[in-house]
C-alpha cells in the first residue's frame, strides 16, 4: 500500500486515473476501521487534506462552499455557518465524538455510502450540491444524486468531490436534524430525519423538505409529507399526515439495531419533531441574512 498526498485537484485526478485501485480519503474515520476489519486495502491511498480548497469554509455572499475534506469540527465551530444552518451543523456535530469530528468530513460521510450517515439528510434538505472533479474537469450534481446504494456512489473511479455548495438560506427558513440512537453518543442512527421549512409572510408553510436516514438503502426524500405541509400550518392533522407519510416512505430492514416496525414508527415521530423545530427556527429568522 502506498500513501500519497497531492497538493492540487489536478494532481489528485491524474493519480486516480493512472492507478485504477487508488482510493481517496479525508479523515479516514471510515477507511481505517474498514481496513482493520478486513476490507482489502487499496494499492494507493490518496490523502485529500493537503489540497487547499478541500479544507476550507467560505461564504461569497450568495452561497457557502465547504471543502469536501474539511473536518466537521471546523463547520460546527464556525459561528456564522452554524447560525445559518443549525440543523446541518447539529447533524455534523453528532458524528462520533470530539476526536472523530476533528477528522471526519462531509465528503467522507456522504461517499462512504452508509444509509445512516448523519450529515446527508441535512445536506439534502438544504439543497446542497457536490462539485465533482474528474479527468475532464468538474461537474456539479445534487447531493441526493451521489449515493446510489449502501457503499455505492455514482462517482467514477477517477472522480472525487472537491467541495459542497449550499445557497445562502432564504428569509423565514429554518433547518433541523434529529436522530434516534439507543445511547446518547458513539452510536449509529437507527432513524435520522432532516427537515427544512420556509414560511410565507402569513406564517403558513411555503416550502418544505424532509429527508430520512437509516430507513432505506439510501437517504429518502418524503414528497408526500412535503406536499402535506405546503400551504398549511403545523396543526395536528398536518403533523400526523407528515408522520404517516414518513413512515410510509421507509423501506427499512430488521437488523440488530432495530426492527422494521420500530424504524417506520419512529421515522414518523422524528419527522414530525424535526419539522416543528425547523418551523420554530424559520419563525425566528424573519428578516434576511
Amino acid at each position, binding site marked *: 500500500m502506498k500513501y500519497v498526498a497531492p497538493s492540487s485537484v489536478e494532481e489528485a485526478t491524474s493519480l486516480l486515473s493512472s492507478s485504477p485501485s487508488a482510493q481517496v480519503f479525508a479523515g479516514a474515520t471510515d477507511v481505517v476501521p474498514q481496513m482493520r476489519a478486513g476490507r482489502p486495502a487499496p494499492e494507493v491511498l490518496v490523502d485529500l487534506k493537503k489540497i487547499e480548497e478541500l479544507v476550507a469554509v467560505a461564504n461569497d455572499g450568495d452561497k457557502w462552499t465547504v471543502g469536501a475534506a474539511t473536518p466537521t469540527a471546523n463547520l460546527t465551530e464556525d459561528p456564522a455557518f452554524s447560525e445559518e444552518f443549525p440543523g446541518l451543523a447539529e447533524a455534523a456535530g453528532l458524528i462520533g465524538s470530539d476526536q472523530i469530528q476533528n477528522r471526519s468530513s462531509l465528503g467522507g460521510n456522504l461517499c462512504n455510502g452508509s444509509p445512516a450517515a448523519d450529515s446527508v439528510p441535512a445536506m439534502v434538505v438544504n439543497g446542497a450540491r457536490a462539485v465533482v472533479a474528474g479527468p475532464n474537469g468538474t461537474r456539479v450534481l445534487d447531493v441526493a444524486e451521489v449515493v446510489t446504494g449502501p457503499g455505492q456512489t455514482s462517482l467514477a473511479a477517477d472522480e472525487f468531490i472537491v467541495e459542497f455548495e449550499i445557497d445562502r438560506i432564504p428569509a423565514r427558513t429554518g433547518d433541523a436534524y434529529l436522530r*434516534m440512537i*439507543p*445511547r*446518547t*453518543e*458513539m*452510536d*449509529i442512527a*437507527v432513524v435520522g430525519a432532516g427537515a427544512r421549512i420556509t414560511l410565507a409572510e402569513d406564517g403558513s408553510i411555503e416550502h418544505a423538505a424532509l429527508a430520512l436516514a437509516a430507513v432505506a438503502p439510501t437517504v429518502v426524500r418524503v414528497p408526500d409529507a412535503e406536499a402535506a405541509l405546503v400551504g398549511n400550518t403545523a396543526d395536528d392533522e398536518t403533523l400526523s399526515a407528515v408522520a404517516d407519510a414518513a413512515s410510509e416512505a421507509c423501506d427499512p430492514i430488521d437488523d*440488530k*439495531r*432495530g*426492527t422494521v*416496525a*420500530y424504524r417506520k*414508527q*419512529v421515522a414518523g*415521530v*422524528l419527522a414530525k419533531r424535526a419539522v416543528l423545530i425547523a418551523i420554530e427556527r424559520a419563525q425566528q429568522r424573519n428578516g434576511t441574512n
Partner: protein
Amino acid sequence: MAITEENPGYKWVGTRPIRPDGLEKVTGKAQFGADLMLPGMLFGKVVRSPHAHARIISIDTTAAEAMVGVKAVITGSDFPDLAANGAHPSEIDVANNTIAREKVLYEGHVVAAVAATTREQAEAAAKAVEVTYEILPHVLTVDEAMADDAPLLHEGMITKGVDPAPEEASNVASKILHERGDLDQGFGEADVVVEREFTTKPVHQGYIEPHAAVADANSDGRAHIWCSSQGHFQMRAYSASVLGISPGMLKVTAAEIGGGFGGKTVIYLEPLAVRLSQRAGRPVKLVMDRDEVFRATGPTSGTRIKVKMGVAKDGKITAAEVWMAYEAGAYAGSPVGAAGMTAIACYDIPNFVVEGYDVVCNKPRVAAYRAPGAPMAAFAVESVLDELARDIGMDPIDIRLANAAVEGTQASYGPKFPRIGFVETLEAIKDHPNYTADLGPNQGRGIAAGFWFNAGMMSSATVHINENGTATVVTGSPDIGGSRQSMALMAAEELGIPYESIKAVVADTETVGFNDVTGGSRVTLATGAAVVDACRLIIEDLRARAAKTWDVELDQVEWVDGQAQHVEGAQPPLSMKDLAAKSGRTGGPISANASLNSRGVGAGFSTQLCDVEVDPETGVTRVVRYLTAQDAGRAISPDYVEGQMQGGVVQGIGWALSEEYIHDSDGVMENPGFLDYRIPVASDLPMIDCAIVEVPNPAHPYGVRGVGEVGIVPPMAAVGNAINDALDVRMTDLPMSPVKVLEALNEQRD
C-alpha cells in the same frame, strides 16, 4: 454517608488519600497484560471455530507450518487427554474449553494456535490452518436446549440433583432446589398473588483490557507466565492441569489489570502460550482482539425465570415460588446455584420453593460476573414485589421493611444471618432527598434491593519493615478495585506509621504465600485480615525488641502511635524508625507472614433508587437520577467503595437498557464490538449518588464486608420498576431497549 456505628477514632481507615497506582496509569507506565516485551519473543494467534456446533473431522497444519516466520503450530492433540487420564470432569471441561478436541461447542471455540516472528505472519498462518468440520445442529437458548428433541452438546450428560437420576442424557447439567414451609398454605393466606415470567440475555463483563498472556518456557519443563488475571495462583493451577504438569513447574506473574469483574478468574490463553513457547523455544505473546473477547470469553448467563409471590394486605410476603433456567454456555456451570440461594435472600418468607436448572447451549462458556447469578433473579423477584406493593397500595420501601431479613433471620439458603445491614440501606434511601425529589412528565421512580454473600477464602500476606522504618506490604491478590490502597490503609492503622510510608505490592506465585482469586468481594476482607495479622505479628516482634533493648518484661511495653512505649514512661519511646535502624542488633530483619482461611464473611445488601424518563413516542429510556445505598461493613477506602458501588450500578444500567449478545440463525455472534454491544457511555448516565452504610462485620478486625458485587444486583429491577412507574408498562424481558419499550407502549395503547 450513613454511619450506624461511629468510627472508633481511626486515623487512616476511612480516609481518602491519592490512589497509589494512579500516576503510573495516567502516564502510561503501568504494565498491562499486553505490554510485556521479551527478547526474541514471538507473536501468537489463535484459530477459532466459525461454527456454533460441529465435529472436527481433521486439522491440517502443514501449510501453516511451512509459512515464513512460523515457529510453532499446536492443536488439541498437543495437550494431554485428561478424560483418558481420569481427571475430574470440571478439569476436563476447562481443558476442552481452552482448546477443542473432538467437537467445537460455540462460535469462537479454539481449535489451534500458531506462533510466528511477527504478528502479521502469525495472522496469515492462523488463516492457513485447514480445519474440516461436520456441522451439527445447535441450541442457543435454554428454551431450545431444554426442548424434547434438542441436539445434545455432551452425549453422556445426565442431570445431577434429580432423584432418581434420569436415564436419558439431556442438556440440563443439574437441578437445584430450596424449599421451606407449605406453598399452598402460603398462597392461601395471600390477599394478592402476582405471577410473571422474565427473560434476560447473556451480557459480557465488558472489561476494557482484552485478555493477554506471555509465556517463556525453559528446556527443563518449567515456564514463566505473565498475564492479566484476577488470580495468578488460579491461573497456575488451571494451566498446570491443562498442560498435565505440577503447578510448581509454573511461575505466574500478575500484570496490572484493566478490569475483570469475574471474567478474569478463568484461563483462556495461558496454557496455549506455554505450549507454543515450548514448541518454538522462544517466549510467545498471545493477545485477544475485542472480537475474540466477545466471541469466546465471559459472558454471564441468559435466563428464563418465573416468579409467583403472594402478600397479605399488611405487606407480609406469605409465599414465593421461583423457577429458573440459566444458560451455562458450552460446559456445565452456570451460576444458577448462587441464583437459587440469593433470589429471595433479602426477605424472611415462611413458604417457598426455589427451583433452578443449569443448562448447556452453544455459546461461550459463562464466566463469573459480579455477584454471579444474583442480578437476573433479583430482576424477576424485585419486579414482582414492586407490583405486589402497588396492588396493595404500599410504599415500596415499606413493603421491603415489612419483610426484611435481619440478624437472626433464617436465610432462605440455610444459615441464620449474623448482624446485617439490609434495613439500614432501606432507611438510607428513605432519608435521602432523592426519595422525595419532584418527577417531571414521563418520569418515574423505581426501587429495588439485592443481596450477595461476599466470599472469604484463603489469603497470605507478608509485611517487611524497611531499614528506615517504612513498610512494604506484599500480597498475592491482584488489585482490581483499589486493594493496594486498602491494604496500606489498614497497615498504617495497625503499625501507626503514615500511609505514605507504606507500599503495597502484588507479588508473583513464588514470592508470597497462596492467595485465592480476587473475586467474591473478598480481598479487603480476607487478604486484609492477613495483612492485619502480619502487622500484629510485627508489633509483637517490635515490642519484644524494645523490651530487650530496655531489659524489661514484655508486658512493660506497649505499641502506641507507631512507637514502643514503656507503660510507666520509664524509658524514652522507641519509634518504628529507631527500631528498624537497630534491627541488626535486636534479632535481624523485621518481617512477618500471615496466612489464613477467612474467619467469617459479612453478607452485603444494597438498595437502589432510580428515576428514569421515557420518551413515549420512541421508547428511549434515560436514567435521570440514581441513588445507591450499600452496607460496606466499614469503608476502609471510601473513594474506592464509592467507585465499586457506582461501577456496579453502571454495569447494571447497561444490562437493563442496552447490553445483549445477538446471534444470527447459525449461532454466529452479530455484535462482537462496543458499537453494537452497547455498554453505557458517560453521557448516558447521571451522577450515581452513593450512601455508604456501615454496619460492621463482627468477623473482621475493621468490620469489612466486601463491596465489589452486590451493587450490580438491584439495577435492572430498579430501572424496570421506574419505567413502570413512568408509563405503567411492566417490562419483563432484558434489555429494555427502545424497540421493546415502544412495543409495550403500543400494546397498551391498542
